[in-house]
């Protein structure tokens, strides 16, 4: 590896400035530039070790979903159950735990639905990755800024601008298992500075015939689920910005057939379709009020609809679920810079989850309604927050903040955070923080636990060191400890839940990043974690070791870029506490470095060495058989062609 680094480290041409100075300006503006050879800086204001993936990384490594992006980040991993992708990291990530304990934001809008608090990071997510400018992962609790639900961390997605396209772009994709996607995106920046982006896409995948050893009996088609893996989605996105005003809206409808047997009662190898529909509108206005006071006002509205149909092992064999939710909110934030050494942020938010309806219907073999149960909930939440960044010394800052959230049906709750930041020199930053966060019981929890549904809490401590070796290389290290409390525990194993569980996670992460002027970028990280669940035993699906390695470079001629990625997922326990061995996976992507007559293309190979591997399954596959893991895909291919008109 040291040899490799030595090879890459060519100093930038020192003569460049001389040449540029002698060039007439007309020619100068025609010259191509390599976007910032400097390391990307975080946007999020947070005293933790932020990980960033940019649009150029998305292209270079051929990411197709937010889950792919997350999988590439330090200390994080995703688990698929062929229904959704789930996120894990820092001791979180028990199977079946929807991505809800981490918050996913699109341009400041919280994307979680209001029934399950799930964040959609796979094909059911709101955005095509071609529209993503950058993704930032802010580890640690975020309740001080975002209140409810920001338990483990924040994933901040920033969308691209119309000017990034400045054309009508048509895109076609084809991949393994008969997967196709078409996309049309129009982007324009007008002379008065207004910026418009509109995009629509559709994806359709045939899927595979899948073999599940847990059901290998003649009655179950020898364990084969045939033709039950199809998936399709439709997405729309629009964004308009002018001066301080920004209005954006998104919509996604994803339909997937589930080839597994996700509950005890479902019948294997029968059609089980799920449909997730998410939409939102987010409008914000930023302005300088004068007197060193800045304001951001925001209105948002979101909807979510879920539907499934399945066959169950019951005298009334057909079941359907139809859940709907709608919510809106307003947020008014101010930043005051009245004092030289303080930056004071304060504001309030009101959120109204005015419609939360869950409906379970069962049908007789003759398709007549046998039972039809509905539950409705709602919730109003009022929050106030305040934070101060106090530079009490050239090299020291103190960051103190708190947020108070009061929901109509719950006691009020304070989420505090305090962080001390020390910069001994301009290259080094040390951050130490303590924070508390919480999660309100959502509509699904209220339906499951009734009056036992209460908030759950986490207290986190973190120490971060960032050091820039020079302007091209950076090392980030962090140590953390999380203590969770009031988690729901099944006391008897028969469904008698009570919020009495405590658990703990601690670990460390180390990352090295570099980018050189010649277009080569590298990033590698290792994460160690050790976590106990509410039973005091090692936590399920919490790998003790995670490794990531990424390297990308233009090939000679500067037309094609190659991106190589390797990921190591350490050994972890299954639901039956069997240990699954660690696995290394590699992905390889070739992408066009520049456009040729408006054409650009990308070709990816996933699981390059066709490794056969399994992930922890959230389902009770076949209790006692020791088969509680789910086999993942072997090598797959993907090709994308874009044309700018």
């Amino acid at each position: 590896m040291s040899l490799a680094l030595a090879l890459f480290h060519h100093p930038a041409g020192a003569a460049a400035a001389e040449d540029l100075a002698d060039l007439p300006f007309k020619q100068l503006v025609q010259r191509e530039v390599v976007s910032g050879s400097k390391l990307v800086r975080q946007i999020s204001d947070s005293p933790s070790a932020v990980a960033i993936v940019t649009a150029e990384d998305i292209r270079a490594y051929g990411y197709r979903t937010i889950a792919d992006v997350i999988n590439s980040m330090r200390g994080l991993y995703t688990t698929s159950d062929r229904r959704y992708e789930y996120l894990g990291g820092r001791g979180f990530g028990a199977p079946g735990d929807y991505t809800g304990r981490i918050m996913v934001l699109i341009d400041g809008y919280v994307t979680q639905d209001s029934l399950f608090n799930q964040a959609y990071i796979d094909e059911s997510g709101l955005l095509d990755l071609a529209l993503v400018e950058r993704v930032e992962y802010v580890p640690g609790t975020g309740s001080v800024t975002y209140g409810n639900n920001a338990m483990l961390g924040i994933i901040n997605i920033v969308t691209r601008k119309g000017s990034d396209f400045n054309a009508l772009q048509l895109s076609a994709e084809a991949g393994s298992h008969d997967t196709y996607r078409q996309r049309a995106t129009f982007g324009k920046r007008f002379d008065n500075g207004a910026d418009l982006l509109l995009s629509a896409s559709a994806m359709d995948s045939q899927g595979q015939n899948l073999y599940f050893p847990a059901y290998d009996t003649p009655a179950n088609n020898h364990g084969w689920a045939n033709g039950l893996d199809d998936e399709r989605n439709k997405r729309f996105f629009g964004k308009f910005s002018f001066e301080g005003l920004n209005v954006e809206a998104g919509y996604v409808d994803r339909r997937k057939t589930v080839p597994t047997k996700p509950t005890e009662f479902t019948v294997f190898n029968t059609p089980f379709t799920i449909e997730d529909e998410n939409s939102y509108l987010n409008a914000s206005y930023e302005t300088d009020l004068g007197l060193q006071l800045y304001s951001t006002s925001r209105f948002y509205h979101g909807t979510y609809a879920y539907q499934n149909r399945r066959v169950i092992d019951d005298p009334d064999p057909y079941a359907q679920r139809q859940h709907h939710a709608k919510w809106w909110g307003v947020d008014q934030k101010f930043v005051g810079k009245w004092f030289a050494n303080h930056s004071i942020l304060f504001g309030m938010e009101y959120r109204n989850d005015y419609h939360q309806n869950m409906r379970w219907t069962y049908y007789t073999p003759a398709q007549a309604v046998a039972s039809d149960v509905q539950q409705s909930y709602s919730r109003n939440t009022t929050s106030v927050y305040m934070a101060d960044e106090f530079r009490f010394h050239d090299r020291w800052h103190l960051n103190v903040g708190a947020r108070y959230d009061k929901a109509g049906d719950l006691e009020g709750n304070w989420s505090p955070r305090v962080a001390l930041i020390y910069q001994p020199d301009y290259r080094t930053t040390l951050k130490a923080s303590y924070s508390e966060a919480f999660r309100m019981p959502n509509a699904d929890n209220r339906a499951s636990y009734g009056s036992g549904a209460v908030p759950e809490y986490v207290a986190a401590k973190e120490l971060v060191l960032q050091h820039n070796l020079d302007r091209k290389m950076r090392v980030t290290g962090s140590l953390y400890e999380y203590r969770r409390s009031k988690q729901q525990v099944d006391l008897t194993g028969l469904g008698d839940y009570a919020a009495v569980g405590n658990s703990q996670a601690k670990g460390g992460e180390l990352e090295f990043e570099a980018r050189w002027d010649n277009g080569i970028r590298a990033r590698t990280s290792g994460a160690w974690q050790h976590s106990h669940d509410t039973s005091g035993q090692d936590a399920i699906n919490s790998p003790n070791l995670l490794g990531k390695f990424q390297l990308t470079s233009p090939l000679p001629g500067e037309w094609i870029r190659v991106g190589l990625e390797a990921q190591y997922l350490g050994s972890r326990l299954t639901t039956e506490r069997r240990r699954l061995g660690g696995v290394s996976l590699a992905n390889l992507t070739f992408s066009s470095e520049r456009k040729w007559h408006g054409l650009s293309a990308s070709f990816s190979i996933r699981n390059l060495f066709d490794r056969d591997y399994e992930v922890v399954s959230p389902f009770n596959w076949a209790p006692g058989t020791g088969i509680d893991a789910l086999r993942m895909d072997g090598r797959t291919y993907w090709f994308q062609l874009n044309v700018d008109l």
Partner: protein
Amino acid sequence: MRALVLLLLFCFSLAANAQVVAEHEMKAAYLYNFAYLFDWPESRRANFHVCVLGDEEVGLAMQAYYDRRVNGQRMVIARLTTPTPIRLCDILYVGAGDVVNLPKIRSILGSQPTLTVTDKGSLHSVGIMLALEGNRLMFDVNLEYCERASLKAKPTLLELARSVRKSADGDGKTSAGR
């Protein structure tokens, strides 16, 4: 696997020798050119001051232009750490690190003839905004600002701008557009 790694290494080492212009080098070259592309009010100073605030890289790249002659003046580069001395600048580049100070900078400068340039924030508080579009470095010109600061942009500059923001009273000046 080993063969693949060796092949990649080989490719990388070839690619490493390619000639490219880094973004900060290009920004510095633009700042240098802007000195020629405006008619500056008569100055009694012997030196032409280009100041860089909040971007160490552009500051370093700008050093290459130290001592060059601009309209009879000697170009001097100042890498600033605070906005306090900016009243002495002829061109002031405000990097990402100090964009939050733009309102303050604006009020310190008032209508004195200092050209402010940034690549973050918004055009309405500066004279020129740089923006990376694809792999070209573009720029937008705020004529309203320039007029208030008594800076006269030369036609070449307006011709090559991505967009030109006209003065508020809209006195019929045509935008160069694209």
